[in-house]
């Protein structure tokens, strides 16, 4: 028995999601988060009384116009009389939220924590929320896709990647989404040709290579070693978790492969004892809001040498039946309730190693990476989860 030495091992024993879609006009924000939380509790064979604390995350309050919505969600999340904490790190928030919850268990502050992230984009307009006109400043001339498109072009120039790679990612992720009943986009008649001929919005990014705008929530139940050992269902054990940040812009910033992302990956691999992620990790859920970010993050996360990420995508390695499946769930390209998107990555990684991913299960997945990023490629959050106990 390790007694109180070192960190408490943390187990994911429950996962719940809403059926993500463009607008859930039938539920309030409270009703939306409740669905995900309830499904996570059912998955964990627990009740509200088993939860000691709630850690909740979402993207900017402007996205719904409810300031500090976590305060009014306590009833819906069974949190009255318990600690509730809100996390906010832009688009990476779902990942950061899960990591804060993990820390509370690892530090033995709480035994069982419900963590949840959501966005109800239909209540507002995220593009408006992200482009408030600030006095004296030049307006951003291009919107969110236009912010990232020049970095994609820089990646293509740096690596010599052919301009056909982005469409392959979108085609793969949309097909994977067809196997995931919770995904927002279910484009049953998707073809590579349709992706390639979709309108060019922010050249080099086409419409079909961008993420949708979704209403949705995702929740997980995390518990301690004893809880993980006695859980009636399959368990995902947390083998490592890390966050890093850097400024939006600074002299020397590498937008194609930000240092904060590289450092974050190195930290999480060190914790998990991973020396060769390409061989040791069985499935990856990474935050890819625009198709080209798959090859970019493959390099940033150490799955490929610099300049080689696109070759993994092009050769089919990242397909569901490839030897490094990326975004078997369909990813952010198929589902994007912004604040929840990072937690969905983390939760889908957990589903893979629990063997409960259903139609998009990667056969025999034992170790999976969940990845999220946000802001101007400035906040990073990652975890590695495994089917085996981290000490064994």
């Amino acid at each position, binding site marked *: 028995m390790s007694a109180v030495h070192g960190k408490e091992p943390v187990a994911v024993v429950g996962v719940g999601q809403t059926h993500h879609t463009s*607008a*859930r*006009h*039938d*539920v*309030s*924000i*409270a*009703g939306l988060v*409740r669905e995900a939380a309830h499904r996570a509790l059912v998955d964990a064979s627990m009740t*509200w009384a088993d939860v000691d604390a709630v850690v909740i995350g979402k993207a900017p309050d*402007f996205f*719904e*116009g409810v300031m500090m919505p976590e305060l009014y969600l*306590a*009833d*819906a*999340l*069974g949190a*009255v009389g318990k600690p509730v904490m809100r996390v906010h790190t832009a688009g990476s928030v779902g990942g950061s939220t899960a990591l804060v919850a993990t820390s509370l268990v690892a530090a033995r502050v709480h035994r069982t924590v419900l963590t949840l992230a959501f966005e109800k984009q*239909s*209540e*507002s*307009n995220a*593009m*408006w*929320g992200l*482009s*408030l*006109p600030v*006095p*004296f*400043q*030049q307006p*951003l*001339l*291009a*919107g969110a896709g*236009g912010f990232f*498109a*020049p*970095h*994609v*072009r820089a990646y293509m*120039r*740096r690596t010599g990647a052919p301009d056909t790679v982005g469409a392959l990612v979108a085609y793969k992720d949309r097909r994977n989404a067809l196997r995931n009943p919770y995904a927002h986009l279910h484009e049953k008649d998707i073809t590579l040709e349709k992706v390639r001929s979709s*309108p*060019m*919005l*922010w*050249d080099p*990014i086409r419409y079909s290579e961008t993420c949708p705008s979704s209403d949705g929530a995702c929740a997980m139940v995390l518990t301690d070693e004893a809880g993980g050992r006695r859980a009636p269902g399959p368990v995902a054990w947390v083998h490592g978790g890390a966050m890093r940040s850097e*400024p939006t*812009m*600074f*002299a*020397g*910033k*590498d*937008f194609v492969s930000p240092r904060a992302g590289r450092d974050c990956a190195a930290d999480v691999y060190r914790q998990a004892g991973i020396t060769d992620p390409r061989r040791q990790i069985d499935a990856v859920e990474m935050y890819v809001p625009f198709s080209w970010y798959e090859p970019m993050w493959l390099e940033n996360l150490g799955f490929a040498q610099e300049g080689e990420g696109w070759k993994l995508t092009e050769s089919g390695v990242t397909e569901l039946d490839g030897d490094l499946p990326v975004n078997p769930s369909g990813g952010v390209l198929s589902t994007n309730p912004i604040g929840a998107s990072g937690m969905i990555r983390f939760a889908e990684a957990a589903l893979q190693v629990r063997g409960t991913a259903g139609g998009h299960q990667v056969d025999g997945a034992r170790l999976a990476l969940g990845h999220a990023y946000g802001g101007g490629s400035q906040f990073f959050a990652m975890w590695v989860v495994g089917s085996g106990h981290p000490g064994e």
Partner: protein
Amino acid sequence: MPEPLTASLVVEFPFTRSLGPVQSAFLTGLRERTVLGVRTGDGRVLVPPVEYDPVTAQELRDLVEVGTTGTVTTWAWNPSPRPQQPMSTPFAWVLVRLDGADTALLHVLDAPGPEAVRTGMRVRVRWAERRTGAVTDIACFEPAGDGTAAAAARAAAHTGAFTEPVTGITVPARLEYTYAPGRAQSRYLAGLAERRTLGERCPSCRKVYVPPRGACPTCGVATEEQVEVGPRGTVTTYCIVNIKAKGLDIEVPYVYAHIALDGAGLALHGRIGGIPYDQVRMGLRVEPVWTSDGRYPDHYRPTGEPDADYDTYKELL
């Protein structure tokens, strides 16, 4: 040194709310002059109703109708109403426990002065003439006289079903700020007014920030030495924008580019003109084009110089 600038900033948006079953019934009820509450697991009646039990976390759906008279449980006098508050004349903010309810509702009381208000006084709903399914369908409360005190009505079960229920509402939000961009940007803007681009050099890493932020984010030290950069620069990367951005009066397609001005340690953003959009390329040499009234260059155009070599700007991508 110029004085730091300030400007007003108004942020407003008509947010929409999906009400869900309980709030939908509550607001539709108000439209029909009916006040609904919800009964909790321990038998209490909450008004306004909530979707989940604050004690047990169970889903609550047992709606009940409560009275339109009630008792003030506490209050605060508001002598000078602000725009968009429920009344334009002085009023009392009140918490009212309606007959049959166990919790109090926040609203306003129309009273001639604070001497006319007391905790425990009896009040009744004054309905708005035009009701839409909003909490403002209760125009306000008004004194009811103590003769109504005996009417301790029991809450009666209600299905919550109405014809043409309200399922969503629009909630305009408006925030007014005084925005101050700070000394560094004020210095920068003063330079731009003379059509000079003034960056600031970090005393530690020697890199030049454009626009200056007043400090180097890498070294964490203040930047004070001004350095004139440009006016010419190099397109480091770009995209071609094919969809019109809201509120921007620019014909598509156009090129949105990152431009490293000569001498700058990082690229700034601008539009490229004076060249067909499909001929813009990384490494293109450009210069600013000003209009008479612009605070910033309207766009950048080719200088006609040979393209910059990739190695000269690849660290700025």
